[in-house]
């Protein structure tokens, strides 16, 4: 039974961080802005007052060095939780993450452990432009030795944050900024959402939609509208990009025979490519039609609103692909698209979707 309490994902994260700081003396937060009045979109708000500057470490702007410092402390048994206000900034510390953090356990024959959590926020909206809005999960997913997770609901944000902190590996937590505003049922006190793989979040039999992060909400919205036109689809929340467990996805494909993958990054060379390739290798015969991918078009994020409006795919794109794969009538597709657009209420793409307030 879900908890009666409804809070936002930002509050859920803050709660997880506070509990971890309270229960585990070896944890500490580090990041540019963790001690700010705003507290990283509210996710660290007030923690500096409770835990002080040795546990809530405001950092100079020095992503690479501070990542190495976090890793060094993790090798000594600390459990640093590092935050980048935008994943774009983490481009500066990939050497440390990919070489030192990802490889230390392997290269020492298992003797070193790197219990490091790195929170990276995917920016979106309000004309952020090309360098403050990227969705770079693919880069991390490519690197053996990292774990890469993308929670999509407040419940998962809290539980996966706890699981990431408890994990003895470097765990990259990619947080879509607009998910911070979403409400959901979240239990009080610590609990773990295992970092074990994808999860069916809505069952159905006509097609499988594998979605990650924010696109899970778009997929669920599409699923509801499709249900209303008589098409029941299964939605799988990818959750854990690395290590990748294809089992639930393959099971779903064996049932539905149709696949749409949607993630928050660029389509080409993205997450969807691996999901599709993997499904094709392992369940080719189960596929009734070629899988489809929904992702960003092949160019940087434009700042200008009308260009951003056509840049970001949404539930209508999912509806259209499902319509094609499931042979829905143009009318049914139109009806479902009209429904999802109505829910969005014409709010421009550069503001968070008011209808995604949940509870999820």
């Amino acid at each position: 039974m879900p908890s009666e309490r409804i809070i936002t994902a930002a509050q859920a994260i803050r709660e997880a961080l506070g509990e971890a700081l309270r229960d585990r003396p070896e944890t500490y937060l580090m990041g540019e802005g963790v001690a700010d009045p705003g507290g990283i979109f509210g996710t660290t708000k007030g923690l500096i007052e409770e835990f002080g500057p040795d546990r809530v470490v405001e950092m100079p702007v020095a992503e690479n060095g501070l990542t190495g410092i976090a890793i060094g402390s993790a090798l000594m048994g600390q459990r640093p939780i590092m935050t980048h206000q935008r994943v774009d900034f983490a481009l500066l510390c990939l050497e440390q993450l990919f070489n030192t953090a990802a490889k230390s356990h392997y290269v020492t024959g298992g003797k070193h452990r790197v219990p490091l959590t790195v929170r990276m926020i995917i920016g979106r909206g309000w004309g952020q432009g090309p360098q403050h809005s990227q969705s770079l999960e693919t880069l991390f997913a490519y690197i053996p030795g990292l774990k890469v997770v993308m929670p999509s609901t407040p419940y998962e944000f809290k539980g996966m944050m706890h699981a990431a902190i408890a994990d003895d590996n470097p765990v990259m937590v990619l947080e879509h900024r607009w998910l911070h505003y979403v409400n959901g049922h979240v239990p009080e006190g610590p609990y773990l959402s295992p970092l074990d793989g994808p999860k069916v979040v809505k069952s159905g039999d006509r097609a499988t939609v594998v979605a990650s992060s924010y696109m899970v909400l778009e997929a669920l919205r599409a699923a509801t509208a499709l249900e209303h036109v008589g098409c029941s689809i299964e939605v799988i929340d990818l959750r854990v990009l690395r290590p990748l467990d294809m089992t639930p996805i393959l099971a779903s494909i064996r049932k539905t025979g149709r696949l749409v993958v949607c993630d928050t990054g660029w389509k080409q060379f993205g997450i969807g490519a691996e999901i599709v390739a993997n499904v094709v290798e392992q369940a080719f015969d189960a596929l009734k039609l070629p899988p489809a991918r929904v992702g960003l078009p092949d160019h940087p994020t434009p700042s200008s609103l009308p260009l951003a409006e056509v840049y970001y795919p949404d539930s209508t794109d999912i509806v259209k692909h499902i319509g094609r794969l499931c042979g829905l009538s143009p009318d049914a597709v139109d009806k479902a698209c009209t429904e999802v657009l109505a829910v969005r209420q014409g709010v421009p793409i550069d503001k968070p979707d008011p209808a995604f307030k949940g509870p999820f």
Partner: protein
Amino acid sequence: MNTTTTHSRDEAAFDPVLGVSLYREMVRIRMIEEEIAARYGEEKMRCPVHLSIGQEAVPAGISAALRKTDQVVSTHRCHAHYLAKGGDLKAMLAEMMGREAGCCAGRGGSMHLFDRDAGMLLSLPIVAASIPVGVGAAMAMKQRGEDNVAVIYLGDASVEEGVFHESANFAAVRKLPAIFVCENNLYSVYTPLRDRQPDRPISELGRAHGLHTVEVDGNDALGVYRAATELVAHARSGAGACFMLADTYRWREHCGPNFDNTLGYRTVAEFEDWKGRDPIESLILRLEGKGALDAAERQAMANEITAEITEAFAFAEAAPFPSIATAADNLYAL
């Protein structure tokens, strides 16, 4: 306070004509910024804005020492640098409104201001990312035998990023015509200097990298100008790269149109102290002392600038948005 001032206010050397032009530059920047702040709530400028109100003296003083062909690179807080270097106001506002007439054709927003014709090479929103780009511009000009210099604006937080040091070291070892101008406004977003750097003047970093280094009062446009003239001559002559530390203060919030002193990350006393050192007001006093610019003249100037601003906003608001058919254009140069 993090620095000492070596270029003090030297009233004897005060040139009223230059003073008036620095005054005009600063007032123009401030009036534009204030108009942006006033209109931001209309939600036509749909991108973050980092205003320079309070920090006008540095770009005014620097640009007065530069040629058009000298190159400037800037950061997220680039409005004043762009304007002082001669960047097109209409293209700036159109950019902030996401119009095709914007300097980036609406693709970039307020943190990507540039104007090739004016020698404003680029601005970048990643802290310190434009620093090496400016050094590269200096190297290119040296390689091509042009005697231009590159000015690299950076905030006090930029020197925490490794790339600043990599860039400074290379500029020093190759004696490039690069001038690093550090605007120390004491904060990185909400974090004060003492939580980010040890207690020593930031200029020590310039010296340790072998850069010709000076400290100036960043609220004294004339002092900045005089120091800049010397550094520019030094760099232009091939004598090597330079570093200027200029202490100054941002009046409004880090990002956005409002004041934010109520948040408590800085004291009202500190804010008031710096407001008392307003670079514009203090220059007015000095100009009036020389009888160089009376209230009526200032009003006439303000009227002129208001007209320019009104026209520029009207231009930007009327300018068309990019066609969505062009969204993917210019991914690759042909």
